[in-house]
């Protein structure tokens, strides 16, 4: 990208790589510190299915070889690092011969779709409302209604999700309770399926938007108060520019910059919140996959899902960092 100093780029890139590497190492290390052995769990599952397991020792040994648990730790670690670079997390133990990457690839589009939709809507609505709270020309109603609505901002989306589910799905039956699409539609590019997906997406997306827009509105309010008193705003007014033009081009344009930095810091929590929303709505995304994996003690899937979500977070932060100099030209000269 033109105009971004290389030192800034290098700095951000190092942070990205470090983040992903530390996360990957933690995910690898933690289960190995635990006394619980995944192979035992799998044998336990077989035993509970069949009553008893013949040749348990032989099976254990073959597992050890299959999952490379015979190798010295450092070799396992290096192999692991090599594998995750190509998104190979091994095989799921609960649905055995399926690769974890297949499961993740199936769930990922749902999560990304919901995430991009809710994050963009939230960011736009939140910042606009925050700006309107300060703007002297906004209607009275805005100044009264928004602070009242902001009471919900501190609530995590699972709680709002539960409430919405109860009111609109269980009580009023306007919208479906769970899932990402109806059981009677054929997945594909047909109108019935798309409609069903949209219908199922409304509640989870609303649950996230309702409780997160206030964070941006609050931050924006504080920033707008600062910008409001600036000389260039006064000058713009004195020049007789249109109030709306001043609001968008002079005030919001300047006030929004720290919000973008805040966005980079907040995105991890947003994604974590969304994982939980997916879990309660049984939405076909990463959240449900993770929850099912926890129930089944399916370690490869838990690791894979955690890693991919952390990777998405780190990449989003990196992207925001890259976009920042394009939005704020001053940063290009800092170096």
């Amino acid at each position, binding site marked *: 990208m033109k105009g971004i100093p290389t030192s800034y780029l290098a700095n951000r890139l190092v942070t990205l790589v470090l983040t992903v590497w530390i996360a990957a190492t933690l995910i690898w290390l933690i289960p190995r510190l635990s006394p619980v052995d995944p192979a035992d769990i799998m044998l336990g599952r077989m035993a509970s299915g069949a009553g008893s397991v013949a040749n348990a020792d032989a099976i254990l040994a073959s597992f050890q070889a299959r999952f490379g648990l015979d190798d010295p730790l450092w070799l396992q670690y290096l192999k692991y690092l090599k594998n995750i670079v190509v998104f190979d997390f091994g095989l799921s133990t609960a649905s055995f011969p399926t690769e974890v990457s297949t499961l993740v690839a199936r769930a990922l589009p749902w999560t990304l779709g919901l995430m991009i939709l809710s994050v963009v809507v939230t960011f736009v609505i939140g910042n606009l409302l925050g700006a309107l709270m300060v703007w002297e020309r906004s209607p009275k109603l805005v100044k009264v209604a928004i602070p009242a609505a902001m009471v919900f901002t501190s609530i995590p989306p699972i709680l709002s999700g*539960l409430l919405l589910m109860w009111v609109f799905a269980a009580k009023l039956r306007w919208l479906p309770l769970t899932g990402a699409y109806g059981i009677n539609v054929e997945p594909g590019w047909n109108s019935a399926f798309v409609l069903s997906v949209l219908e199922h997406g409304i509640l989870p997306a609303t649950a996230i938007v309702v409780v997160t827009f206030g964070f941006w509105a609050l931050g924006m309010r504080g920033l707008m108060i600062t910008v409001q008193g600036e000389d260039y705003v006064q000058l713009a007014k004195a020049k007789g520019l249109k109030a709306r033009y001043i609001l968008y081009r002079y005030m919001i344009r300047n006030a929004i910059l720290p919000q973008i930095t805040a966005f980079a810091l907040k995105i991890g929590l947003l994604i*974590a919140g969304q994982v*939980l929303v997916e879990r309660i709505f049984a939405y076909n995304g990463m959240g449900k996959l993770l929850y099912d994996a926890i129930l089944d003690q399916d370690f490869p899937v838990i690791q894979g899902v955690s890693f991919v979500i952390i990777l998405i977070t780190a990449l989003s932060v990196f992207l925001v960092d890259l976009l920042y100099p394009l939005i704020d030209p001053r940063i290009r000269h800092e170096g």
Partner: protein
Amino acid sequence: MNEPIISRPESGTDEAVRDALPTTGAPAPGRTASGESTPGAGAPGTLSGTVAVGAVHPAGAGAGDGVPSRADARAARRHARRMRRFDNPWLDPKLLWGVGILLAIIAVGLVGRYAWDTEMVYTGSAPLKLPPVGFENLRKQPGVGEHPLGTDGAVRDMLSLIIVGAPNTLFVGLVASTIGMTVGILLGFSAGFIGGRVDDVIRVFSDVMITIPPLLILVVVQASFGDVSLTLMALLIAGFVWQSPTRLIRAQVLSMRESGYVQMARLSGASTFDIMFREMMPNLVPYLFGSFIASVTTSIVTAVGLEVLGLGPQRIPTLGRTIYEAINSGALIQNLWWWWGIPTLLLGIMFIALLLINLGLDEVSNPRLRKA
């Protein structure tokens, strides 16, 4: 009228104000509160003067010095105290409401243990799925006085669940953020003060760790280790809430390091420790509180998140675990709204209280946000 408030160095326990006064003159108290000297930011000088004094001495009732007559001094002092009582930024209504609600939840937990039979949190200790008093469940059973908030599908009394569970949830948040805060203060000060390599390492590490969502690492931890105790969960969460305080304090320390009163203290031979904790710390108080409350919120959200995923302590009642059990038993479809609704409502109230505290603290440290 505002003369005695602006010019009076407070009771002497705090050297920051006093050190600043001789060097930078009258506006100095204005900048000790929030680092911005805004004596005339739309408010009369009294306001920003008291902000500074109030922020450094929440209960400051000082002795004026260098005033000619005794009676005059007393009258001036009384006046000043009366003005302060109303102007004291710590008496912010939002702050008070927030703290009040949290204390009420804690009080319910403490008093409830003695006033209510908390043995009923164990499975099978109460009738099945009774509604709260005044409602009817799907089997047309009315709520009964013995279980005013109803009973859940695991045959437990909801009121005892709340009494035991709500303080547990708060406990996790408070312990985790106290530890996180302590680590943050230490790292932030070291980074800002020592600088160089130490700063680089701390900065990069906190940048990296702030990106990783705590929930996902903790899911891996708890899935591998199985059941955890409440304290262990708090400790684990603490490992993910030190980053923001570290960054915040580092930034503040860096900007304060060059300010007049710190320079003055350094010139007068104060030790690094003294400068850190006796000069800078009091001025960081509103930020520290704000950051603390923010990490309490994050910790509780993370804890509830883990519990809703079925992790976390398995045998100790918490609000999150109650919600988990309710969802898993299909409480939404069975119209058992009190089972998931009461913990949800309580958590919501808890978060609103924390938000109010944070908004109040914002107004304490930034007078421009206050209503004139």
